[in-house]
């Protein structure tokens, strides 16, 4: 019945027989080199361990790959940029070839950025590759996280890898922001000004942290050099270390797979690293790289020459941060007027800064610890290797939809002025609209997503039991018209019936006969998660439905 090979190694003899390569000089060299290296590193063990490891296939598994490959592109292009960029805020008069800025005072950082753009062949391309790749890096990490969240791929044994991935997301945003600030142009300078203003708003320590960060009063002459050190040394080292652990845990845990005939919680079905996965993934790296280069060749990004050098007085209307900072900027914009108070004899408490920072902090911490919350609610200590379809975990999917809606509201708020000008609305109305969306939107999204999931589950159940509508209408001898339902094959049905359900926790007294508060809370959460549920089709139901 099964045609897939049962083990990876069973495959080897047949293949080896087919391809007895002629032992030419090339092969002899490869043989000699392999032996030389193995005798000094024992690398054959690694090849044996990794070479035929199986990777399951699904389009959504590619999102994490995009993140990894765009990071490699960032490293390559960034290395080129360091050959020319000078992270100094010493003032010079620009003498490069961009006419409109000639003779203007600016920092060396800005001048060298203009030189990279206009006086070095391919320099503009590499700058744009670096910036586009950075935007793609953060975007693909975000989508990868959503994939992992909505399929429950964070469940045991992968909770820690979720945490590492989350750290990578934060590091990626930090990398992005520090890099964005380096050219010392008007736009990024105003971005730093906002950071300065936010830091100053922190109680007690804010003034001093800003003072230390900028090496004196804002803007100072130190910040670009300091951010450069973070951007090209500390943060990349942390990112590389975190990616290393992320990949290592991926190998230890093996990849999840979606339910399909023959796939179980105890196996991995897919292509081996050598040769199929290596060829696909290696090829995909070049495709990601190629797409980034094509975009960089065709679409301008961050034209710092249009903004000019940083000056604390001018600003352009409709300025936007890079997309991944938008949610934080939007949070600042949504604060209603007047949230700033003087306390204990004159100290200033800037709630208009603290509240958005705390709300964002709670939001991302919830994302960070979600796997542990769900594990506590279900009490499930088993390993899970089958990725769930989002509909089969309705409450989780609904929580995710609420989170996405919340984030989207913050994100949209960062463009409130552009939304107002594009749609000819008053900016006040846009802000009030988004404030309402921020509060109400998540509830609506939660409710809708949950209903849609339950509806889809019911539909799955219906199709699994009674087949699908074939579109063929038949007139019965009695004159009655019916539509013929076509049954699914066992293979097709498997995907619809092979999911797990949980039921709400029943409160039981503990050994001392007491019901603890903790137990009550857990039962309440459990009821919230699993009260509405659709049971998977059982064998008995299937048989009885086949009889009529």
């Amino acid at each position: 019945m099964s045609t897939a090979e049962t083990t990876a190694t069973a495959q080897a003899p047949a293949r080896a027989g087919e391809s007895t390569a002629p032992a030419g000089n090339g092969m002899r060299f490869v043989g000699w080199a392999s032996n030389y290296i193995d005798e000094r590193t024992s690398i054959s063990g690694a090849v044996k361990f990794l070479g035929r490891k199986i990777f399951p296939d699904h389009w959504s598994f590619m999102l994490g790959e995009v993140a990894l490959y765009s990071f490699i592109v960032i490293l390559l292009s960034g290395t080129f940029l360091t050959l020319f960029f000078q992270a100094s805020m010493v003032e010079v008069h620009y003498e490069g070839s961009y006419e409109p800025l000639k003779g203007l005072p600016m920092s060396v950082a800005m001048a060298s950025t203009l030189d990279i753009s206009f006086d070095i062949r391919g320099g503009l391309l590499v700058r744009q590759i670096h910036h586009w790749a950075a935007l793609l890096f953060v975007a693909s990490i975000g989508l990868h996280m959503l994939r992992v969240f909505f399929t429950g791929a964070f469940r045991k044994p992968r909770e820690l890898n979720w945490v590492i991935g989350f750290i990578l997301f934060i590091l990626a945003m930090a990398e992005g922001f520090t890099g964005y600030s380096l050219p010392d142009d008007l736009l990024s300078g105003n971005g730093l000004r906002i950071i300065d203003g936010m830091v100053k708003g922190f109680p007690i320590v804010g003034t001093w942290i800003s003072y230390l960060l900028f090496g004196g009063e804002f803007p100072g002459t130190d910040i670009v050099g300091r951010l450069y050190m973070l951007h090209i040394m500390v943060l990349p080292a942390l990112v590389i270390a975190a990616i290393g652990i992320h990949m290592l845990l991926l190998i230890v845990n093996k990849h999840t797979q979606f339910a399909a005939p023959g796939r179980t919680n105890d196996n991995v079905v897919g292509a081996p690293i050598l040769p199929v996965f290596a060829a696909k993934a290696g090829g995909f790296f070049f495709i990601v790289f190629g797409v980034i280069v094509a975009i960089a060749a065709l679409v301008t990004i961050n034209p710092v020459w249009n903004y000019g050098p940083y000056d604390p007085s001018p600003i352009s209307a409709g300025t936007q941060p890079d997309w991944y900072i938008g949610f934080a900027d939007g949070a600042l914009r949504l604060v209603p007027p007047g949230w700033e108070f003087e306390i204990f004899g004159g100290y200033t408490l800037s709630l208009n800064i603290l509240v958005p920072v705390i709300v964002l902090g709670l939001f991302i911490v919830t994302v960070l610890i979600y796997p542990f919350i769900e594990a506590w609610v279900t009490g499930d200590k088993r390993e899970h290797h089958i990725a769930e379809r989002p509909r089969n975990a309705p409450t989780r999917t609904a929580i995710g939809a609420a989170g996405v809606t919340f984030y989207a509201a913050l994100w949209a708020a960062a463009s409130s002025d552009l939304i107002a000008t594009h749609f000819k609305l008053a900016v006040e109305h846009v802000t009030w609209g988004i404030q309402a969306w921020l509060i109400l939107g998540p509830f609506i999204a939660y409710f809708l997503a949950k209903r849609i999931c339950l509806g889809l589950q019911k539909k799955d159940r219906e199709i699994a039991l009674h087949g699908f509508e074939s579109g063929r209408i038949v007139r019965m001898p009695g004159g009655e018209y019916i539509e013929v339902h076509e049954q699914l094959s066992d293979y097709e049905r498997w995907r619809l019936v092979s999911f797990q359900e949980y039921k709400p926790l029943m409160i039981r007294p503990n050994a001392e006969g007491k019901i603890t508060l903790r137990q009550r809370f857990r039962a309440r959460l459990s009821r919230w998660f699993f009260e509405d549920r659709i049971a998977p089709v059982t064998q008995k139901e299937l048989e009885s439905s086949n009889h009529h």
Partner: protein
Amino acid sequence: MAQDHGSTGTEVAHRAAPSAGTAVIPTDAVENPGFPPYRPRVTDLDPAKEKAQERRVIAMFLVSALGSVLAVVAYIAFPITPGDMESVRTNNLLFGLAGALALLAVGVGAVHWSKSLMHGHDLVEQRHDTRGSEPTRASALEIFRQANEESGFGRRKFLRNSLIGALVVSPVPAVVLLRDLAPAADPVPLLKHTMWAEGVRLTRDPSGTPIRASDVTLGSAFHVIPEGLHETSHPLEEKAKAAVLVMRLKPEQLHVTEGREDWNYAGIIAYSKICTHVGCPVALYEQITHHLLCPCHQSQFDITHEAKVIFGPAKRPLPQLPITVDDEGYLIARSDFTEPVGPSFWERSV
């Protein structure tokens, strides 16, 4: 922990199966039908098609090599002429597109090779528990026990705690070391003062030319810096505090509070340009409504009411700079700002 269900009874492992929590363990779940039969690809069945796909992949790789050559050609054939922006654009476009072709073709070729020509059957690998086997775990525990025994780590409590104490304190010098990230001076007095002082002329930004009261016509707005800003040792830091907007309204449009009667000159008023929210320049002046708008977070200030906040996250009005004119008719400051400018900070009003 919840034990709603006992063991399912099917496990015969050497240890108790991990708890399934509140999961429902079905007794008659539908059975996994096993692997479906392999659906051969055309390249599996027809050697001619296999050959054709092979040629296609080779063509991709050759196109890629061609793209690399073209990129080098573009680099040399379309150099940058200093001052000619068109040449920058051409260099960027052609070098980039040829490079993209080289990368995309080799990538697409490799993926196509793997999908159409490489062995297409799925392979199966068994998973094992992530946790170490019982003997391995026992050995690990034994090693810890032995190490503890041999070192006395658990037994010599005072020794252990003094080690922990020493390690906790050890990073403190490194933290202290960071003090000189900023100068010795206390930042708070610096934040409370600007370059403005009695008699300092208001000058245009960026030229630094002084402004006559008669230049400021009704409805106009001037971006202003203090005279002598460019000669200071830290012009950007000074400007970040001292930037001012000057506008003229009809005197009867101004709602002047007590004590500020002589802060404007015939309807000419000067306000700090640095937003009281997080410090962006409040650079957008709406002439008809006399509103100032901060483009960063949309705080709006009403100039007729001494720049009080009418919308947005800012709380405080923009500080007003008291001004008058000197003997020659130029606008001058009567004093520094009477309160700190820019974003709020903890010690602001202390």
